């Protein structure tokens, strides 16, 4: 029974959310915030893998989110809808509901490959250099998108709402809640399985003493590449979900500000803590919405928050611990590590 308690809890949570949305108990605005929470959970846990567990400093997470968002958007719009850019749908739109997860995964793979391209040169260096290279990569990705006119350039790319409508033709359920939830759970599962394996513990070893790791038979270069690819691939999936949630992507929304948001979530939650990153993503998404009336001042408040975290609780909410470390009773049901 205990073995199944977490899956049961997740199914109950999912059906409740979908039921609430279906019976229109919660309006579209609240639904969107819930979707953003799920997406942000993927973003923060995936960045946490590189910044928290591996101890490298990647600042360009939004670049990979952008790659995933654009690749999956272009694919889904071209495959399932009629659009000015790509003409008639290549596949019958009824397939949208089944094709969408595949499209998302393609976006994730594209982002993972981009991650590999960034990682190969940058892991020859360390620390500050990786930060600089990832910032540069973020800008390169955005400028590339801006300069491709076919996909809208600086104007952005739209049409993903029609994909969601096409899915609703298949069955009238809140599809996005379903997909975001499934992929959020999958991402956490992937990260948890990775980090709890002996292979993944090599990542922790690299953070604590890279020289010792290499000498104790850990293939540090390969692990760093694999970890970075997993991290950027999951960011790509988050990007695809984000694009289909708001139905419109603009290169501007994936600039350094977005990367900073991801960093704030990781540091708020606590380095190397999966449950910390999840809590932080939820808290941060709520905070962004609550601070919305402040408009532009919001972007004074949030960096200020980062400074305050660094000053008074540099280890974040959880700080290398998991919920199950703080409440040992949880271990009976679920261990994050």
């Amino acid at each position, binding site marked *: 029974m205990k073995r199944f308690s977490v899956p049961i809890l997740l199914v109950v949570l999912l059906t409740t959310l979908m039921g609430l949305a279906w019976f229109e108990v919660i309006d579209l605005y609240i639904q969107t915030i819930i979707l953003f929470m799920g997406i942000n959970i993927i973003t923060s846990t995936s960045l946490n893998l590189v910044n928290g567990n591996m101890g490298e400093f990647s600042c360009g997470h939004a670049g990979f989110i952008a790659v995933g968002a654009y690749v999956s958007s272009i694919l889904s719009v071209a495959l399932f809808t009629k659009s000015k850019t790509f003409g008639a749908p290549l596949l019958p739109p009824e397939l949208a509901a089944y094709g969408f997860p595949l499209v998302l995964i393609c976006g994730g793979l594209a982002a993972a490959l981009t991650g590999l391209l960034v990682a190969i040169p940058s892991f020859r260096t360390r620390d500050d250099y990786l930060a600089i290279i990832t910032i540069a990569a973020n800008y390169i990705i955005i400028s590339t998108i801006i300069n491709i006119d076919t996909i809208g350039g600086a104007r952005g790319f739209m049409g993903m709402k029609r994909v969601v409508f096409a899915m609703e033709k298949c069955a009238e359920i809140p599809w996005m809640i379903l997909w975001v939830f499934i992929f959020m759970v999958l991402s956490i599962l*992937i990260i948890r*399985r*990775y980090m709890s*394996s*002996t*292979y*993944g*513990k*090599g990542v*922790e*070893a690299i953070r*604590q*003493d890279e*020289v*010792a*790791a*290499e*000498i*104790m*038979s*850990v*293939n*540090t*270069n390969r692990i760093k590449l*694999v970890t970075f690819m997993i991290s950027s691939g999951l960011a790509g999936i988050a990007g695809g979900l984000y694009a289909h949630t708001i139905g419109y992507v603009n290169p501007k929304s994936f600039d350094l500000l977005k990367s900073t948001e991801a960093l704030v979530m990781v540091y708020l939650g606590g380095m190397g803590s999966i449950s910390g990153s999840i809590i932080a993503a939820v808290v941060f998404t709520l905070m962004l919405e609550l601070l919305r009336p402040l408009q532009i001042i919001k972007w004074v408040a949030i960096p200020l928050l980062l400074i305050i975290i660094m000053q008074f609780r540099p280890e974040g909410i959880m700080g*290398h611990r998991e919920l199950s470390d703080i409440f040992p009773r949880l271990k009976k049901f679920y261990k994050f590590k």
Partner: protein
Amino acid sequence: MTLLEIKDLTQLFSGLCAVSELNLSLDERELIGLIGPNGAGKTTVFNLASGFYQPTHGEIIFQGRNLAGLKPHRVSALGIARTFQNIRLWKEMSVLDNILVAQHFQLGYGLGSLFFRTPRYLKRERDIRHRALELLEIFKIDKFADEKPGNLPYGMQRKVEIVRALASGPKLLLLDEPAAGLQSTDVTELITLIQWVFDQFDLSIWMIEHQMKVVMSLCSRIAVIDFGRLIASGTPSEIQQRPKVIKAYLGDDQL
């Protein structure tokens, strides 16, 4: 049988000659020492032998295989393990995890089986964990399995580091000043431990050590280097008589 052969090994650090034309060989099942004054290049020799540096000149042959161009993790997989002068355990991981990670070379599963938790993955993980626990038990430190190494006394950390090195199944164990920072009672214990490891495991041990008590009571042969050059080699009692060795340690003008 020769286990490790060092031929004309030279290491330059931008002009500074840390190791110079060193020739040395080590047989299977041998326990030898490497001594020399501070800055003589002892640790550099170990760094070269574990693949951490690539030699400027010369070669290192381990079990008939040239180590040139091999990364440290490959060298380690071939069977050379080492400990460090200043203990380099992964301090925020449990002792057990430290031993697990040292078996990285023999994981035997891919990422696919990791994510899908295939029977193969589960079996390999079980085997690795079993081996780690077995090692901890042999050394009677299984009660510390879940402790973080940082919380253990210094002598115990040394022991854990030696166990971690043994976890990678070495044919050659390099010990870099194992007695550094230990109290004299711990040193006696360490001597027993090293002798025990040498008797129980099928390996050779090569150690750098400053404390003569350790070297003299353990090593069957000692190599002395000074300024990167081999100045003497022989049994402990032979070494003590050599004028060159006395000169290297005490200087020219003897009292």
